[in-house]
């Protein structure tokens, strides 16, 4: 069998395996959420100030919340099969529209975060590995760990205080200057300007992960036979590091980055909250406390599907990069 058809078969098998996972996630979360006291109508009525039980019952009937749980679940699943994520009664809007609106900001933040974190992580990990157990190694390790161990919201707030309030370099929060309503290229620049602080804050958190992975991965490669052979052949340590070890060491790091992009689609509740970034994390957070079931399930569904898809893509790319890896 040739390689392409093998990969195709592999992809379709993995996709098929992904479906039950996503279904299970829906079912699991559906029942979990229904275990929680109160429903969307309670929240709406509580916010509104007051509502008669009769009116609340009317709303429940309208939202379909009066039906038995299994029926509600079946209705939801039926919609999902037709790629309809349902309706958010709280927002009076289709779930897909709400999610799409928040998806792009999330993607923007996450991709820039990963690029920054992976870039610096590789650099620092490399540096640490070539100077193993020296002061450089120690400083890099401690630096990466400090950025990881400092509570995110603290870093975020300090960023705002220092770079927005004291230096005035960046806006405190939001995604756009909404007093100005820029258009075209100015808008792109404006969004990039707003993106800086949240990206740095969030990437500091992931920096440690990539630094450590890169360091470990490099050390692992150093221990392999081909390095010993290369040394025996008389290659310089420099050449060994940059030509052989580095290339092989990058592979798991890049894989991890791919997997993370998928996982990060769920958003970062804390960074979005601190910087008022309109991402999916806050949307999920708010919809949980509003018992906006359809919306929350929709977000879970989307992020799970993305994780499954990204993992698959990463695996396939991986197999191209390293033909020794057998797929199937």
């Amino acid at each position, binding site marked *: 069998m040739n390689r392409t058809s093998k990969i195709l078969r592999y992809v379709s098998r993995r996709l098929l395996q992904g479906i039950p996972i996503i279904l299970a996630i829906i079912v699991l979360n559906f029942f979990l959420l229904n275990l929680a006291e109160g429903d969307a109508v309670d929240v709406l009525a509580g916010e509104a100030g007051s509502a008669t039980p009769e009116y609340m019952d009317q709303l429940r009937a309208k939202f379909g919340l009066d039906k038995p749980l299994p029926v509600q679940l079946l209705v939801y699943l039926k919609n999902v099969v037709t790629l309809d994520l349902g309706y958010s009664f709280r927002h009076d809007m289709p779930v897909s529209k709400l999610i799409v609106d928040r998806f792009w900001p999330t993607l923007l933040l996450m991709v820039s975060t990963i690029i920054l974190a992976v870039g610096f992580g590789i650099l620092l990990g490399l540096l640490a590995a070539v100077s193993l*157990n020296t002061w450089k190694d120690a400083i890099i390790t401690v630096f990466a760990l400090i950025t990881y161990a*400092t509570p995110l919201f603290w870093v975020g707030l300090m960023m705002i205080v220092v770079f927005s309030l004291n230096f005035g370099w960046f806006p405190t929060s939001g995604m756009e200057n909404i007093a100005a309503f820029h258009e075209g290229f100015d808008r792109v620049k404006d969004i990039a300007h707003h993106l800086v602080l949240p990206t740095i804050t969030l990437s500091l958190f992931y920096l440690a992960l990539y630094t450590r992975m890169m360091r470990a991965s490099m050390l692992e490669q150093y221990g392999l036979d081909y390095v010993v052979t290369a040394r025996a052949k008389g290659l310089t340590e420099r050449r060994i590091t940059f030509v052989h070890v580095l290339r092989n060491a990058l592979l798991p790091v890049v894989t991890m980055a791919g997997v993370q992009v998928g996982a990060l*689609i769920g958003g970062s509740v804390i960074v979005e909250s601190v910087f008022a970034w309109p991402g999916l*994390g806050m949307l999920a957070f708010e919809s949980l406390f509003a018992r906006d079931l359809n919306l929350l399930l929709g977000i879970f569904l989307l992020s799970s599907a993305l994780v499954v898809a990204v993992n698959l893509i990463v695996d396939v790319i991986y197999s191209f990069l390293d033909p020794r890896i057998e797929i199937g």
Partner: protein
Amino acid sequence: MIDFWKRFSRNRSAVFGLAILVAVLFVATIASLIYPEDPFRLAGKPLSGPGLNGFLLGSDSLGRDVASGIAHGAKTSLLIGLIATLAAVFIGIIFGAFSGYYGGRIDDLLMRITEIFQTIPSFVFAILLVAIMKPSIESIVIAITVVSWPGVARLVRAEFLSLKNREFVQACHTLGMSDLRIMLREILPNCLSPIIVIGSLMVATAILIESGLAFLGLGDPNIMSWGFQIGAGRTMLRSAWWVCTFPGIAILITVLAINLVGEGLNDALNPRLRERQ
């Protein structure tokens, strides 16, 4: 053991981390001795700066002693980290061991279940669990466990996969040992070192998750923890920086120490690195 310590102590930052960790543990143990009062007790003038009005690290908006809170909170935060990690490691080992050892259908089933939990955005899922079970120390531990175990399962499975075909395991089969006995007595001890490493890091992550939950208002209102202090002090960061800075530093130092120790363990337990030196 001595050999292990030698290798561990070669990594100076790991030793440094261990020293900090021991200090934190010490403070947690003697918290009730140095601060016998309930840390929630109003102890004096609200919002006193560090060193003022008899408060070593200042007081918060209700006049509670920040230092007392940190000492008592150390116990809570470490316990949350420890229990959640132990639980996650326990579940992870069961899933990973059976999956890796038996393979086939069992592997497929267990790994699909693992993937379900791995695919849900974990922090949001933790929030969901805590919200549903009501914020309390138990629900926080459960939530952290639920989002942490899949990583362990994957790791254990990989170890089991590579170990189960080794000669010594084959030999045990020939001797007629039961599967369970082989898994527990022969394979598991051989994959303890990566489990210890990942576990040590999970303790740190658990402490961070707890503080993140507290930041979002999902902490246990009855138990003093670092996360609680941060949640209570975060809005006054600008006016009374000490209220949440010191607990933040406590988290930072502890998480850092645990990670350094973890890294040290990794280096000391990793046979390949041993040869390099």
